[in-house]
């Protein structure tokens, strides 16, 4: 007889179900509770864990920058300078060290950090003097008092 399609009792069945399940469970082995053993619970937990780690990789950069800024602020306050003054005066003196390196210097090289703080303080004072001017009147003005006759 001629058979054009497969018989009904021949189904295609999964033979590597074990390994597919293990691929998910291997990422859940260090979890707490039944979600490190049971596939149905593990799938949900593993998915949430991966999503959270993707988002955390972007947040990590922001978090670390905040941490560096806090540390630099603490170190510069020890030398009598506030963080905005310190950073702005360092940039105005053309020293382009980033916050990561400044935090590392503040922890491991205190003398270098002190010299950077002194540099920033001196540049700040020079800025104040430049802004105050010479104390003379600007040119082109002959009198400050208006005389009405």
């Amino acid at each position, binding site marked *: 007889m001629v058979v054009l399609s497969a018989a009904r009792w021949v189904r295609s069945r999964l033979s590597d179900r074990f390994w597919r399940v293990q691929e998910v469970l291997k990422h859940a082995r260090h979890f707490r509770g039944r979600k490190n053993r049971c596939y149905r619970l593990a799938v949900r937990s593993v998915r949430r864990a991966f999503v959270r780690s993707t988002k955390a990789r972007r947040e990590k950069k922001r978090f670390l920058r905040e941490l560096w800024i806090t540390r630099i602020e603490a170190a510069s306050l020890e030398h009598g300078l506030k963080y905005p003054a310190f950073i702005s005066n360092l940039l105005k003196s053309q020293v*382009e060290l*980033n916050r990561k390196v400044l935090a590392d210097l503040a922890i491991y090289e205190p003398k270098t950090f002190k010299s950077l703080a002194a540099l920033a303080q001196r540049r700040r004072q020079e800025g*104040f003097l430049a802004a105050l001017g010479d104390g003379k009147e600007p040119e082109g003005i002959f009198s400050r008092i208006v005389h009405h006759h």
Partner: protein
Amino acid sequence: VAKTSLTSPPWPEVKLPDPVEEAKYHAEVVRKVNGLISAGEYGRLFAVVHFASKQWKITSEDLIMMDNVLEAECGDRIRMEKVLLVGADDFTLIGRPLLGKDLVRVEATVIEKTESWPKVNVRFWRRHNFQRKKIIANPQTVLRINTIEIYPCLS
């Protein structure tokens, strides 16, 4: 005239030191530091180097791993040219923003070129049947900083 609250400005008065004396002091300091460098009386040198778009605080014999490909083979010696800061125990040389190439020399060797561990990127939007999974393995390079040298040519 009696002093009132408006005789002097409310900010503290700032006085800079005398420029002539300051110039003498600067020349003295430069001479001393040059003497120290040429005599070789410094211990371990550290440097802040701008490399692979990041700044690193490095000393000799330490390892650096960067998250990209370097076009040098394993075992090649590399000289890092953008040095921002060099320091020892007694003195620091701060560049504005970079130090001269005739002043500092930082040498490194490429040790390893591998890929990072497979990071999993999953985007999932609940109740919307939206799930994307991507496995990323960045290429990484490991460098070993061999030496940091300074030459006594300050001015």
